[in-house]
């Protein structure tokens, strides 16, 4: 706390505490979706303090508390990618996130990137079967997430008109349209702990959405 003299950082930290307390309040009322947004705001505020004052213990402690709370509250419906980094896959497996072998069998597509954690899930869009692959890797200050999508079964290319949208909690959604006869699609995103995003896959009138929290 001795370095904690700058008013700006102090206000930033206090705002984080206000958002954290508000998250607890909304969680108690059962308004989890609002609690999630408050917790994310708290994490962003603590993260900002951390950038200037990395040794500020209370901000670090609060950050951990918020992350734990997020996992406790949202682990059951969000895919918590942070757990994967801790080698915990129980809930992921329950939600259909399996190893590449389990999804692709022997025909695993080539996917570069060493020491990254890779899991895949079968996505059914009508008669089309696809595999969504999450490839995550912890970097110094953020998590790199590569999202890949492949055809499954006998198909060798992605279906025409497949729309793939990455939706952050705040900011604009990014929509991609699969190119005709393309064998796969990939996009890389960078997130901080506690951040949430969704991935929507749409083919004609069929839509599947997966929600993630880091």
């Amino acid at each position, binding site marked *: 706390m001795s370095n904690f003299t700058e008013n700006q950082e102090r*206000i930033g930290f*206090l705002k984080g505490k206000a958002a954290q*307390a508000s998250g607890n*309040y909304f969680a108690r*009322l*059962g308004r989890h979706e*609002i609690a999630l*947004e*408050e917790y994310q705001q708290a994490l962003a505020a603590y993260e900002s303090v951390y950038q200037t004052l990395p040794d500020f213990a209370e901000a670090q402690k609060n950050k951990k508390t918020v992350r734990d709370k997020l996992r406790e509250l949202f682990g059951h419906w969000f895919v918590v990618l942070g757990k994967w980094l801790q080698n915990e896959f129980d809930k992921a497996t329950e939600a259909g996130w399996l190893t590449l072998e389990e999804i692709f069998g022997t025909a695993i597509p080539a996917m570069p990137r060493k020491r990254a954690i890779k899991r895949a899930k079968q996505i059914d869009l009508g008669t089309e079967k696809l595999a969504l692959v999450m490839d995550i890797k912890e970097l110094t200050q953020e998590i790199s997430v590569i999202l890949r999508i492949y055809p499954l079964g006998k198909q060798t290319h992605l279906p025409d008109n497949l729309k793939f949208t990455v939706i952050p909690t705040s900011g604009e959604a990014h929509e991609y349209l699969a190119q005709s006869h393309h064998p796969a699609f990939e996009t890389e995103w960078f997130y901080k702990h506690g951040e949430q995003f969704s991935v929507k896959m749409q083919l004609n009138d069929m839509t599947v959405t997966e929600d993630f929290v880091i």
Partner: protein
Amino acid sequence: MNPEQNGSLTNGHLALQYFTNRHQFTKQFAEYLNDSPPPTKILFFHGDGGNGKSLLLKFLREKYCKQFLPTIWQQLKTQSHDELTTAIEKVEQYTPIPTALLDFGHNEQSRDHFYSLLMLRRHLGIAAKKLKYKFKFPHYDFACVWYLHQSGKSKEEIKTLFPPEEMELIGVIMDALAQSFWANLIRSIISTLTKYSGLHLGLAWQQLGLDKHWVEQIKAMNPDKALINQLPHWFAQDLNAIMQTDNAPSRIVLFFDTHDAFWGHEHNLPQESFFYRDEWLRQLLSDLELSTGIMVVIAGREEPRWANSPKFMISQEKIETQLVWPLSEADALIYLQNADISETDLQQALIQYASVKPNQVHPFFLSLCADVVLAAKQRGTTLNALDFATIPEMNLKSKELTNRLLRYVDKEIEYAIHALSACRTFNRELYFTLGDALHFNATPPTFEIITQFSFVWHSQSEESENGYRIHDLLRRLYHQQRNVTKTEAHGILEQHYRKQEKVAEAIYHSYYQNPARGIEEWNEVFITADNLRNETLCRTLQKIRNELVF
């Protein structure tokens, strides 16, 4: 009435006399009230701050809530917009319509999903009584009393929240609740309501539908997680039922002003937090059956985004949005003539000064211009067109006009206005408190002068008839300026509210002296309130936080 002697143009009732234009809105409003079957859309007026939306609502409420005989209406309807406006005021044979107005900008309670409904219920009760109707809200009242009872409120506290004519009923409910015996409770309620409504017991049972099952359902609900969220539903259900009784008015009008106050200056909220703010309102509106004659009129800066809300979505087809645009030059001229500003060159100069685009005159700027001319006249200075020849940038107009206005008022008044800009709302008592503490000469005549300026608005709450607030455009302007008087005023107001044990209001003023101190105290008080399940304080603090944007 000579505005020169009153120094006011747009304030309160006087403003209504100078209300100009808006004939199209007036006609549309009259059609909603008189056409049969009733239109089933929500009327939503939107437009930039200062465009006169609040004044329009006041105007419609005070002058046009009239229902005419079908034959008279058919004749009126054939007239042009302008003719109709005048004709409606002249027709003497009409049925007055019960109305209630809730201004979300008034304070945090007016946006609170518990207290705002209670206010609305109270206002409707009072309006109905004035017009000799009997409005009963049995489900809402019971659920509300049960919620307050569960929150630890005393019988006396609860009784003060309801209209006076409901005192006996509320007392009976409370006594019965204290005995925790539902049969006695129901018997007492029915007996009381039977007495009020003249219904025989069996019919009252049938009509009220307060049966054992329903009461038990209410009592089993978690007050803060479930019950409170159902109150808009029961309010709407009771109001729908009222409108279907034989003696009901054919229309009632619910006015909601300053819809944008739910968000204040926050524009980039995440989706869930954004839509949570007015969730109770959407639920209420979704459950109201407008086909029964309930009319909803709302004003706000932006068009509602309700069609995108994840809960209680209201589709765009159910809303009639109307842009409230600036005045035309012709209407601005009428406005100035009404205000006794008749010199042609000066009129043109003021219109140019207050224009935002060609032929678009900003009502707020125009009223400030007129205030300046009249205030100068009162000081013996006659302003002419040359005094308004230099037109500043748009964003500087409010500041420039206010500075000019203050030049023509006493120093005491200038000082007082700076101090009052620190208040969220103020009344006579607060004005004198600030005067005492900050050593300016607060007198009844100076208070009258201040409250008649165009940027000072009557508070739209029936609970505080004598409440005022400074127009948001001006408060925002003052917030950006460093002013010693204003900062000192925040200190005085903080102490004032601490003495009154209004901690949330005290924190608000603490924040404006020292943001870190304000947020720190907010955190302490909020965490304690959350731990103690003090839901009212939690909600109030959340709204203060929203307003301060932290």
